[in-house]
């Protein structure tokens, strides 16, 4: 066994370089086939895994892959050969049995779905390992290499394996394209599909068989233990980029293909390296990048949105406080100090100062010698907010029977969210009740009655 010491040796880098060159010159037929196989596998597994994920059965693939192991061993024991077809059929059979068990247990006993998954996974895997250790301690011919199924070994793959792989993955991809509409329907709205008369059971079975197929065919490349990741991680990463199913599938397929190719290449160059783990690591990197940087739902974007919202809420709160001060002084005085503002709203003085600076930038507030004024536009905005706040308060106290203390906190949030249509709706509901539960008047917008607001 080749020990894979760290690559500090110059000659080793050269060796890797030449191997890479060989790989990409497509002279080595086997290497090219492995590349094509892994691309196809990554694509089909992530596409079919997407449906499992969306139907909330993310770890089904994990259990099914583990469940394939005893079938492989039994097939070898019974036939005595390592033909790709025989192994494939054995794996398929025991994976399907595993699927049936996972389905049957929660329906007929009090075992919960997650436990059913774990039970099937570990029992079948133990059975597979027991048979494997039995085979290895026996005198059977050509028994070596069966253990490569556990973590996958791209270098140990045969042309025959690849042919089956290409065939099966093509069938899977073709089936997904053909039945795309039906799969989408039963994934997102099973009940509706039933009322339409779609044979839901049949398509669910078909999906399950496709999942089993892609798991079984990937064993050689990815291995039993980590098959779960190639079904699950690509779609989880893709979800940060889009909500459109077709886009999701294409993205997931792309991610899967990319990392499968990467992993198989690493393992092909350094034969001591198992393929599966490298595929999973590169997939996880893609996931992490999507999680953080995706433009629509990434962490950075959401953090940014959150910060903007906080800033807006803070600005609006200060505006409303200025309005309240104005109201207290019977609209006679329109210049207030920091101390006056903080007396009405609990806010740290530093935060208040930055917020006031932002407000001045937007020309809602002006500052003269430490005193702050509401401008015309600022007043307009403040009236709008106060109006929404008080409308919501009186709406709640009339229709939801909440005390005046409770309504204030609700309104404190709603004032930032309500839009014009909702505002009009509430006005219509409240008829002419123009005071909030605390007895303060609900101001009118200046366009309709400027003097009304300053009454």
């Amino acid at each position, binding site marked *: *066994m080749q*020990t*894979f*010491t*760290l690559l500090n040796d110059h000659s080793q880098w050269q060796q890797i370089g030449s191997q890479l060159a060989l790989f990409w010159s497509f002279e080595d037929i086997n290497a090219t086939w492995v590349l094509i196989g892994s691309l196809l596998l990554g694509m089909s597994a992530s596409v079919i895994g997407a449906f499992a*994920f969306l139907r*909330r059965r*993310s*770890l089904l693939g*994990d259990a099914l892959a583990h469940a394939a192991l005893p079938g492989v061993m039994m097939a070898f024991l019974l036939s005595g050969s390592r033909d790709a077809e025989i192994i494939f059929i054995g794996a398929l059979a025991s994976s399907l049995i595993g699927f049936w068990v996972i389905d049957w*247990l929660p329906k*007929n*006993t*009090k*075992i*919960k779905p*997650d*436990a059913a*998954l*774990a*039970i099937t*996974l*570990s*029992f079948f*895997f*133990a*059975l597979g*390992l*027991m*048979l*494997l*250790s*039995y085979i290895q*301690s*026996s005198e059977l011919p050509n028994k070596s290499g069966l*253990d490569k199924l*556990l*973590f996958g070994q791209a270098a140990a793959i045969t042309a025959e394996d690849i042919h089956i792989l290409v065939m099966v993955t093509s069938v899977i991809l073709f089936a997904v394209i053909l039945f795309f509409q039906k799969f989408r329907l039963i994934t997102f709205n099973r009940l509706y599909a039933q009322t339409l008369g779609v044979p839901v059971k049949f398509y669910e079975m078909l999906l399950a068989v496709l999942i089993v197929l892609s798991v079984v065919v990937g064993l050689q490349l990815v291995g039993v*233990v*980590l098959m*779960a*990741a190639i079904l*699950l*991680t690509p779609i*989880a990463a893709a*979800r*940060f980029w889009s909500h459109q199913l077709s886009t999701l599938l294409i993205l997931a397929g792309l991610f899967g293909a990319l990392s499968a190719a990467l992993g198989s290449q690493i393992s092909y160059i350094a034969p*001591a*390296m*198992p393929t*599966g*783990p*490298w595929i*999973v*690591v590169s997939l*996880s990197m893609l*996931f992490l990048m999507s*999680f953080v940087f995706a433009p629509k739902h990434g*962490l950075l974007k959401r953090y940014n949105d959150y910060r903007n919202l906080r800033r807006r809420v803070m600005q609006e709160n200060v505006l409303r406080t200025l309005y309240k001060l104005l109201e207290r002084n019977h609209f006679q005085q329109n210049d207030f100090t920091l101390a006056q503002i903080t007396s009405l709203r609990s806010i740290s003085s530093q935060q208040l100062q930055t917020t006031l600076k932002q407000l001045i930038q937007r020309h809602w507030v002006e500052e003269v010698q430490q005193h702050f004024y509401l401008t015309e536009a600022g007043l307009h905005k403040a009236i709008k907010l106060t109006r929404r706040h008080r409308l919501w308060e009186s709406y709640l106290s009339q229709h939801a029977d909440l005390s005046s203390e409770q309504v204030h906190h609700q309104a404190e949030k709603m004032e930032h969210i309500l839009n014009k249509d909702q505002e009009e709706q509430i006005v219509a509901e409240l008829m002419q009740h123009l005071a909030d539960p605390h007895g303060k008047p609900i101001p009118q917008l200046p366009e309709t009655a400027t003097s009304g607001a300053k009454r």
Partner: protein
Amino acid sequence: MNEMLNGFIDQWALDLWILATASLVAASCAMVGVFLILRRQALMGDAISHSVLLGIVLAYLISGTNSLWVMLIGAVIIGLITAWLAETLHKTSRLQTDASIGIVFTLFFSIGVILVSLYTGQIDLDQECVLYGEIAFVPFDTLIFGDLESGTDIGPRAFWMILLVFLIVTLGIWIGFERFKTVTFHPSLAISLGISLTFWHYFLMTLVSLTTVASFDAVGAILVVALLIIPAASAYLLAKSLKAMLWLAILYSQAAVWIGYGISYWLDSSIAASIGVSAGLLFVLTISALQMQKAVQQNDYKRKIQAGEL
């Protein structure tokens, strides 16, 4: 004659060590597994047992020794990180719980396997051992009390490790029994009583990590799941109370060890895998018995209804 007897006793002592280790492993796993099943966190057990590999490898690479405490601490840290990361991912990215668990543990396990392959010459671990464990070799890796030359051999390392963990687990469950019960069956009551759900969740995860790392030498990373989940699930089918479930799970696990040992002797197969298989067989047996009982009952009712007795 005397020599033969001595050889016989040696062989017998080896078997005894193996059986003692295996039954302690199985009992600890069964007890922890009961709570995993009841709290519907079976998959968390699966996840932690996988990622513990990374903990062991990292602890070994960083500290340079494979002493008992280093392994235990490494495993507990990585186990808690797994639990925490899966939960955080679930919360911040709105992924389903099982999906986030799956993403985290496959990554950790992969890194672990890659590290094992990279340092295969320097680490006393290989891919095989990760999968099967090496319970058959457990008796040869012994702890020596005192210095290396003159000290007394006090028995296998794995045995002492699992004994320690077994004691911790038993003590933990014994002391926290009432709390665990409330948290498991009545989380909302627990909150109103001021019991911290988070604390007990992570306490359970700590116990799971400890159990898996101690079982690692003996049965490998993945078969631990079989011992964690299957005996507890069998007990879940029969038990009517938490105490009964704990005892039944221990009983099932011990039966699995004995039957598994027999199977491995008969087939010359891996002991750990055979124990896992026999746990599964006992589960299948229990299910069949229950299904049969159900069928008989249904027939009975049917007859009674037809005869007009009900």
